[in-house]
């Protein structure tokens, strides 16, 4: 209510949010907001709470503390690519059928897939460089090709907010370049994109905003500011250990 413009355009705002498991924080006292149309990279060492943060943002993990507001966003307005999708890649389903699921908002459980929807799916396949792959079973795809299929599905989902959890891990350079182009296209379409990434050069080149966390938030803002040497050094110092006898955190009470 207080800080006018920023509050109005914030898609997701966090106020002293702590996320974690079994009362142990994985993301500790994070405050800030993701502005509409921003392209943000979430970086930090392994175990820093990056994936946990995304789970909190989509709402599958309720905050242990603090307030997380998804200002008017509904669940289905957020497209989410998990790090390890619970997808059975030997499942007998074709590439086209998988991509068409992106139309779920339109077709749901019962409505038919029209020719126009199918054409959009074909266009999405072309956009991710899989022209002509529609009839292939997904079991025949490589990891990189499958990631392209998931991106094509997200293209159809047409969501204002897109969350990507390590989308380019174990993906070859050419696929990464192609899929980064898709991310850039989303940014150009004023969608809010939040991606967990490890490659800092990639972040510097493609992501205007960055959030560096290592359980505790370290820096959040323009990428050049965030990825400064002292911040990165601080991130590495943070312990990954989980203390079974940790005291109750007093910070939010004080």
């Amino acid at each position, binding site marked *: 209510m207080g800080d006018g413009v920023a509050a109005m355009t914030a898609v997701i705002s966090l106020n002293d949010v702590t996320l974690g498991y079994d009362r142990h924080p994985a993301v500790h006292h994070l405050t800030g907001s993701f502005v509409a149309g921003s392209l943000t990279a979430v970086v930090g060492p392994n175990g820093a709470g990056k994936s946990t943060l995304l789970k909190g943002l*989509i709402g*599958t993990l309720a905050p242990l503390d603090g307030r997380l507001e998804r200002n008017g966003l*509904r*669940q*289905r307005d*957020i*497209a*989410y690519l*998990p790090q390890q*999708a*619970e*997808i*059975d890649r030997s*499942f*007998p*389903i*074709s590439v086209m059928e*998988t991509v068409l*699921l992106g139309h*779920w*908002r339109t077709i*749901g*459980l*019962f409505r038919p897939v029209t020719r126009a929807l199918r054409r959009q799916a074909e266009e999405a396949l072309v956009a991710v460089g899989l022209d002509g792959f529609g009839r292939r*079973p997904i079991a025949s795809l490589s990891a990189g090709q499958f990631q392209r299929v998931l991106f094509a*599905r997200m293209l159809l*989902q047409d969501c204002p907010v897109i969350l990507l959890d390590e989308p380019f891990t174990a993906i070859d350079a050419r696929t990464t370049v192609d899929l980064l182009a898709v991310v850039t296209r989303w940014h150009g379409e004023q969608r809010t994109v939040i991606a967990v990434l490890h490659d800092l050069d990639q972040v510097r080149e493609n992501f205007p905003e960055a959030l560096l966390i290592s359980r505790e938030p370290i820096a959040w803002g323009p990428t050049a500011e965030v990825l400064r040497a002292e911040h990165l050094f601080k991130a590495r110092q943070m312990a990954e250990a989980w203390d079974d006898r940790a005291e109750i955190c007093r910070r939010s009470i004080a």
Partner: protein
Amino acid sequence: MDLYAALIQPFIEFGFMRRALVACLALSLGCGPVGVLLVLRRMSLVGDALSHAVLPGAAIGFMIAGLSLVVMSLGGFIAGIAVAVLSGFVARVTPQREDASFAAFYLISLALGVLIVSTRGSNVDLMHVLFGTILAVDDASLLLVVSIATLTLVVLAVIGRGLIVECFDPGFLRAVGGPGAALHFAFLVLVVMNLVAGFHALGTLMAVGLMMLPAVAARFWASQIATLAVTSSAIAFASGYTGLLLSYHASLPSGPAIILVAGGVYIVSVVAGPRGSLWARFLPRRHLEA
């Protein structure tokens, strides 16, 4: 004995054989696709667990009303659903996985069933509930089996897309706000219904055989969900037909005969099916150009 006498005459001559064959056809149509979905969901053994879970309900029904079709079916259905619901509940509110809670509840249910049958009924009754009597299927049972098959196919046609997505990518369905839990439950109801249909004909122990064996065999012949379902139903019906003839000519119990034929088809499929079988693995055809 000529071919006609061997393959067709028994069904022309005897009403009970015709009835048994129709029951097999109906069971095959329902169990085929349901079994395929169970395999795809990696729930093959859950079908087994549920078939055992049906026993105490059927036994209680038997105690109340004797060999009454309606009461025993209803009892079996309620017991099966109870185990499915309790397992699902425990799996959702505790860290225990669903297969583990299924194992726990079906064992409780099975022991309860055997206890009831053996304290209150004679051994002959126990044999009937455990092994069924497809050759004694009457009009009412036939109507039940056919109704269940029809309902199964209609429900599958309506919620098929949801079931497949829930099975292929449950995380996606959750993210787009699809009714994952409701679909899962609806599917378990279908499984229990088809097992109840099967237990009249084949008994609680064998009912799951006609559901799982054709479905796992089909994976060696087909590679799309629709063709898998059709193949599975076809194998189930062929096994039913062959098993009935076998039991007629060799005076074997019909239930085990049918399931053993299905088992034979499965083994042949593992060895010689066109997709991923031992034959395809050890005698591969030459590779293609691209």
